[in-house]
């Protein structure tokens, strides 16, 4: 029951191969794996202007922590961008955590809110539309605002803290809902084809599990508590997450296998959907696959 490499006290057992690692060996393993993903999928280039989406939670502060380590070596420009959805009792706590971290690390933090950009907080949208699932509105608004603000900041890459668990959930959700076109936009670097209106989103933690990211965050003292969004239980993703966690417990390696299988077919999916035209929303001008973008459609329906 000691670290596989240095025989000291372990802090984690890796789920897919049952290897025990101590603090120092785990941090080395974690950062090497993220760097391998960055290199293999060309997530970063020297002098990239990187906007890092932060929420103040474990995933985003861990990815920002890693990017800070790479900043000078790769001559990156680095800005943190936080989206304030307006979720009382959840987001206000994590905003303080993000502010504190960015101040300590001397990273510029930009904050964009739903209230300023869409006229209402998520709490008030939900209050007026009790039967609408919060996550389905929130995901669309957040992705759109992250892209728009990153473009305004002239970013060349938008980094997110998405981990292997998030990606496994998205893959399975899209399969079960027959949303293959959405799956074609997944992967360590998103998008089917380059378009200057879309900032490529990069996921350095693509092959690291949620537990590994939480362990990294804990060992770096990045978060005080691992809060769950108050609307989380409403979502389909929540059900898929529990299902995958049950499978992982019974059959270790399930999530890795699902993502690895997906990566093999991803080039075929990207090729299949490469000719889909990206238009400009008639209402707001943002890029959209239809005449009116999803954001404007939701706003019209619920606000």
């Amino acid at each position: 029951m000691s670290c596989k490499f240095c025989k000291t006290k372990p802090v984690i057992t890796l789920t897919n191969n049952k290897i025990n690692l101590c603090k120092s060996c785990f941090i080395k393993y974690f950062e090497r794996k993220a760097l391998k993903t960055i290199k293999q999928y060309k997530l970063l280039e020297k002098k990239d202007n990187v906007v890092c989406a932060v929420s103040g939670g474990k995933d985003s502060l861990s990815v920002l922590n890693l990017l800070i380590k790479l900043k000078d070596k790769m001559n990156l420009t680095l800005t943190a961008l936080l989206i304030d959805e307006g979720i009382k009792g959840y987001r206000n706590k994590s905003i303080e955590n993000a502010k504190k971290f960015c101040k300590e690390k001397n990273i510029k933090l930009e904050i964009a809110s739903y209230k300023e950009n869409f006229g209402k907080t998520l709490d008030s949208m939900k209050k007026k539309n009790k039967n609408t699932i919060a996550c389905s509105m929130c995901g669309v608004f957040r992705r759109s605002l992250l892209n728009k603000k990153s473009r305004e900041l002239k970013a060349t890459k938008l980094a997110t803290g998405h981990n292997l668990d998030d990606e496994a959930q998205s893959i399975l959700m899209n399969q079960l809902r027959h949303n293959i076109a959405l799956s074609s936009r997944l992967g360590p670097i998103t998008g089917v084809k380059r378009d200057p209106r879309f900032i490529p989103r990069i996921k350095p933690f693509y092959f690291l599990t949620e537990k590994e990211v939480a362990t990294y965050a804990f060992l770096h003292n990045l978060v005080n508590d691992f809060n769950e969004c108050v609307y989380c239980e409403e979502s389909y993703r929540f059900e898929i997450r529990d299902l995958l966690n049950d499978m992982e417990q019974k059959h270790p390696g399930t999530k890795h296998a699902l993502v690895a299988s997906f990566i093999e077919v991803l080039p075929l999916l990207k090729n299949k959907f490469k000719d889909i035209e990206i238009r400009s929303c008639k209402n707001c001008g943002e890029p959209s696959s239809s005449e009116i973008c999803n954001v404007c459609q939701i706003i019209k329906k619920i606000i």
Partner: protein
Amino acid sequence: MPKFILEKEGATKQLEVITLKEAYQKLKINPTTVLATRNNELIIESTKLKPKDEIKIIPVISGG
């Protein structure tokens, strides 16, 4: 008996167990969804527990 502080549930339980793995089984906790600490240091499933140990069980799931 070691004491377990369940952060998600805001509850404390005492269990007669030898390892953390046994505690997870008794508490019906999926180990892939939590971190466990003793004296603010991470411990793994096979860790042997002592009667006076106080173990914090922290959910790793965040966001939405």
